[in-house]
């Protein structure tokens, strides 16, 4: 029983952590971030399974996390009011070529980072952007002027 509780507690903590940290961490996966992810995975595994090396223990932990993942997405789908809390909401970063500085600060993003993302979308200048929106998955979508 304890392994199910531990897995649920770790899931809830990681879910809250990912929701609260903001999307900056999701959108910029530098090599260091990938290493951090692996390290966090290792630390979490020890906390969940501890000294249990059994297949049953592993199955229980994975099943608990899988079921909770489904439960979160099902709740998000069925309960519209909870959707912003569970999945987050898009954030407008640029409107009509003008950067919304306050929203950049909120997400700890710099103009340079937004410019980099724009270049990756073959957009040379933020002045050409009608809308730039930070999506819930951490990516920035651009809508160019005149489109």
């Amino acid at each position, binding site marked *: 029983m*304890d392994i199910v509780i*531990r897995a649920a507690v770790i899931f809830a903590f990681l879910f*809250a952590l990912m929701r*609260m940290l*903001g999307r900056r961490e999701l959108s910029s996966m530098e090599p260091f971030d990938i290493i951090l992810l692996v390290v966090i995975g290792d630390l979490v595994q020890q906390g969940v399974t*501890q*000294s249990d090396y059994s297949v049953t223990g592993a199955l229980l932990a994975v099943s608990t996390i899988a079921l909770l993942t489904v439960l979160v997405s099902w709740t998000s789908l069925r309960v519209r009011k909870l959707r*912003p*809390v569970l999945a987050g*909401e*898009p*954030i*407008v970063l640029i*409107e009509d070529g003008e950067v*919304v500085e306050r*929203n950049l600060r*909120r997400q700890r993003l710099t103009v340079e980072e937004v410019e980099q993302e724009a270049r990756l979308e073959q957009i040379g200048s933020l002045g050409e952007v*009608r*809308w730039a*929106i930070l999506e819930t998955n951490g990516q920035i*979508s651009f*809508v160019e002027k005149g489109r």
Partner: protein
Amino acid sequence: MSDLPQGIDLPRHRDFEGKQAGQWLRHGFLLLLTLFIVAALFNVFGAEPATEEAGAAAATLKVTAPERVRGGLLYQARLQIHANEAIGAPTLAFDKGWIEETTINTVQPEPAETTTDSRHLKIRYPPLPPGRTLNVYIALQANPNDVGSHNADVALYDADEEIASVDRTQVNFP
């Protein structure tokens, strides 16, 4: 017709209207994380050892061990008996908190006799002359399933006669 992308509500997604609570929640969560880490630095979750002492005319007993441990943690307890008078059968009696759901890896020096009753583990050593000090080192490991607060008293006996007792509580974190 507005050229606003579908699904975007400007007051909400640009100006954060009605989302102030979420912002405060986020700051609160980050503050909580900081407090959690600071608390850990101040030994709230163990496992810094604490020293407690109990004395009597015949002997003093000093116990140095962590009062807070986390599941799976390896730790050490050091017990020091200083005999002011001769002790014929120096015996240490450990309360349940020391034994249940805890692995005792080693006890050094090895006791002459080990017994248990419904509540205690008792280890007896050879006679201790006046002025001598006996240091006992115990290597332990907390069972990850054991969570909560336990009595972890230690008493020093001369055979069946109690000389001194240290009242301790050990908290096991998950």
